[in-house]
């Protein structure tokens, strides 16, 4: 018997490398169990604290692992814990933290139970962490589903709001189609190369082979389409505005940032590691998709009255910009994309925090009307929103400008100068709607005439305090202000972030 045990070699587990993941999953389970205990103090205070603590622990472990530098993939080569994965996971944890803070006074969290709500949020983050490090097709799919399924539920967590339910259902249906497409694609890739391992796939394709194998190319195409659904890349973006608008706003904020980061994480890994040798085949296609996405996203946003829908469309456009960094397939491109993702986090979190703050106190919900004259009513919210909009539009002295500069730099250096022009043209179109938001806040008596979509009046979601005074919800204001300051700080002194993304770029560095 003892011999038998000795013969079975126990798998070696690198606990340190897995520690962030353990922290998040552990937090998810713990929160679920503690959530069974009723009591206001536990539900409203302890659970968010526990969930935040697990994310903070995960961030700390990630930073510690970062110091160790790039290591070989763990779990039999299925999970990479390199700097790319760590950097992007830190972005997930941060957006998770923001979502928890924004949810503190949210009705939906209380309706479905804070335990379940937070537990699912953490589970989704765990899925993203897995996805960001996936080095194996199976891991890709596991991470992808672990990310998605909790989000379907979270979208519908405002159970008394029909829009929220609609949003959850829509996301479920479209998301499942995306997952199915991805899975189909991954199966084709496996069929063509005989390997599920990224290194194996890359080796099977080979550097010199003229890859015209239709099985492989179909697989690559389907896999990319599946990921395009998640990253809301046009023309697979149609779900985005509806789902973003219907979902509870803290969840929208989380989805808008974290899901997009996750989708780009795996897009980078898959394209630049597994499919690196067929770049000539996917790069023009992705460049086309990026162009369409930039144009569709920016034009779509022009007609929006709802701030959440506007941010959804703007998110589509931003995905297009970042796709340009993937297209060029260079180390510089990876860095630019990683940088932009971080900038994207702070810009969007600022904007969503303001939307959360206003929709709780305004009878207009997330309509543009809700921020009318905000510069007088609450300058402490108007300034962050202004900074967020300027940053998203790419004005200098904000993170958005440096990010866009970096992306254009990478695009031109990667011989896609025309794509740089497309980015620039997209930014021009985007001015129309970003500046309109600013004008509504600062230039009073501005009537926004958008006849195509009638204003949707959402019932006011009052928190603990119904007053319009921003001091009634200090934590939301704090998020907005901190994220806005970060947006400016990264625009003026971006060196720390540049140092970080330099490591990130080199984690796939052996491939270039």
């Amino acid at each position, binding site marked *: 018997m003892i011999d038998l045990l000795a013969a079975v070699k126990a798998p070696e587990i690198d606990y340190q490398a897995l520690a962030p993941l353990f922290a998040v999953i552990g937090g998810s389970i713990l929160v679920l169990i503690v959530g069974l205990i009723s009591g206001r103090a536990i539900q409203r205070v302890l659970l968010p604290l526990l969930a935040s603590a697990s994310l903070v622990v995960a961030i700390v472990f990630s930073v510690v692992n970062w110091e160790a530098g790039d290591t070989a993939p763990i779990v039999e080569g299925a999970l990479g814990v390199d700097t790319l994965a760590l950097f992007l996971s830190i972005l997930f944890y941060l957006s998770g933290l923001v979502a928890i803070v924004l949810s503190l006074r949210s009705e939906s969290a209380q309706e479905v139970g804070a335990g379940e709500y937070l537990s699912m949020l953490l589970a989704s983050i765990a899925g993203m962490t897995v996805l960001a490090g996936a080095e194996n097709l199976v891991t890709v799919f596991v991470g992808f589903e672990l990310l998605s399924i909790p989000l379907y539920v979270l979208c519908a967590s405002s159970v008394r709001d029909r829009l929220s339910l609609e949003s959850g259902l829509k996301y479920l249906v479209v998301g499942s189609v995306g997952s199915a497409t991805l899975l189909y694609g991954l199966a084709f890739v496996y069929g063509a190369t005989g390997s599920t391992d990224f290194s194996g796939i890359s080796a099977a394709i080979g550097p010199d082979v003229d890859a015209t194998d239709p099985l492989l190319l179909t697989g690559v195409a389907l896999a990319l389409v599946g990921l395009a659904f998640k990253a809301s890349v046009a023309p697979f973006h149609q779900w985005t505005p509806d789902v973003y608008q219907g979902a509870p706003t803290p969840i929208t904020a989380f989805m808008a940032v974290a899901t997009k980061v996750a989708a780009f994480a795996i897009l980078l890994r898959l394209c630049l590691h597994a499919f690196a040798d067929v770049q000539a085949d996917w790069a023009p296609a992705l460049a086309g998709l990026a162009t369409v996405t930039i144009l569709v996203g920016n034009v779509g946003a022009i007609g929006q009255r709802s701030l959440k829908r506007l941010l959804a469309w703007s998110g589509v456009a931003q995905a297009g910009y970042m796709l340009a960094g993937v297209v060029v397939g260079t180390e510089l491109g990876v860095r630019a994309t990683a940088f932009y993702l971080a900038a994207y986090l702070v810009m969007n979190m600022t904007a969503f925090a303001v939307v959360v703050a206003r929709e709780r106190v305004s009878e207009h919900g997330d309509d543009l009307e809700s921020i009318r004259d905000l510069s007088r009513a609450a300058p402490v919210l108007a300034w962050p929103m202004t900074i967020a909009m300027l940053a998203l539009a790419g004005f200098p002295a904000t993170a958005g400008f440096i990010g866009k500069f970096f992306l*254009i730099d990478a695009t031109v250096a990667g011989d896609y100068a025309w794509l740089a022009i497309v980015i620039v043209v997209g930014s021009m179109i985007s001015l129309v709607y970003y500046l309109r938001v600013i004008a509504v806040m600062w230039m009073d008596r501005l009537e926004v005439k958008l006849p195509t979509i009638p204003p949707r009046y959402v019932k006011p979601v009052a928190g603990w305090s119904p007053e319009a005074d921003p001091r009634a919800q200090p934590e939301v204001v704090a998020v907005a202000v901190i994220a806005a300051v970060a947006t400016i700080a990264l625009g003026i002194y971006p060196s720390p972030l*540049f140092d970080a993304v*330099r490591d990130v770029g080199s984690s796939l560095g052996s491939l270039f």
Partner: protein
Amino acid sequence: MTIHLSIVIFLPLAAAIVAAFMPPRIGRWLVVAAGVAVLGYAVALIADFDRSAAGFQYVTDDAWISELGIRYQLGVDGLNLFLIALTALLWVPALVWAALLERDRQRTFLFHMALGETAVLGAFCAQDLALFVVFFDLMLVPFYFLIGGWGIGERVAATTKFVIYTLVGSLLMLAGAVALGVLTASETGNDLTFNIAQLAQSPLPEGTQQWIFLLFAIAFLVKAPAFPFHGWVVDTYRATPTPVLVVLSAVLSKVGVYAFLRIVLPVMPDASVHFQDLMLVIAVFSILYGSVLAFSQDEPRLVVAYSSIAQLGFILLGIFAIDDLGAQGALMQMVNHGLVAGALFFIIAALTLRAGSPSLAQMGGMAMRAPVLAGLFLVIVLGTLAMPGSPNFIGEILILFGALDTKLVYALVASVGVALAAVYAIRVFQRSMHNRLAPGVEGGDLSRLDFAVIAPLVLVIVGLGVYPQLILDRTEEATKSNVAAATRAGGHSEQQAALGRKR
């Protein structure tokens, strides 16, 4: 003497940020004081400037974003010295005016004014192309708020139009600037740099230069404004509050044409020669179009708006004559137009107040009631029409000399513009100052505030008319060296053409 340009640039912004946390009564004077301090610095710069030294003085050179090859490089030479001074000079009356007139959200207004000064000074001082782009774009932000938040009439539509027009240009320029840096780096094999002087040392192949030239040209022509890109001008000039309009018209419009001299001619000499005729046609069209329309406007504001298009056409003519004299005249004219336009908008504000209407038809006969106003106005009008003895005369003569040297036909057509300037400038003066006293006109002579902002500007105009060498001496070196590459490129292509004819 050490003068830190960073202090000059960021002093207004720093003061405005501090003032934002002070009671408005004290805070506003802090901002004004910062503006005056910047002016003091500018005067010190002119006095201390070493006119014999080649290259940049008071250089600041620090790493900013090393990853992208962007450096924080500032410097002064003859090209930007007087534009910095112009900025500093015009911002003082604008800030005083803004501080004295009570308005809603005054602190925010002054904050944006100060941010605007910082951005403009930064754009003039920047010697790194990327840094220039940063300041160039940053300039728009405060003006967007100033026009949209405190403007007159259709202000939101006007400000949106203004920003979109200008930003479309500057985004194209952003792409062009990045392409310039990246392609030069890959061409030479050096590290990525955006230093303008270094970029000028290794020009790109002509084909590449050409498309990048077009991206830059659109940005600067929109900013100028020049003829086919002037769509934003009328609405914006009508809606902008007076102190903002003064700096917008007098200073902001110079950034674009300055950038032609600083960036386009040295860095893209071949393309500049290639597109020389196109640019000259645009210049001449701007002169004629602006002059003719200035004549037919009923509002003095719009007369000045259109005359600015004509004046900037002149400046453009001087630059794209690609000639030392022309460039120097263009630079001189930038300063002159800034002074004249700034003073004119203050006077127009005074006129509008007295007539109770922005329309020329409602003004008239004010000279009798307001002799001081009339006197100052007359000096400025004579400056506008480039009367001998005014600095504008010297500027325009130099421009025409430069153009006559190289492009005779354009110079001849452009000189018609000089005559037209007399027509529209005198028309405004006559209609407002002479004629019968209009029924709605009230009030007497200039108030102390009006006098305090207008008189110093008039004094400077007269002073420059008497002693233009102040500018000419200090700008000669720099204009020569900035035009040199393009002159060589032009000579080169002419030689080739001559060779072709011989064969």
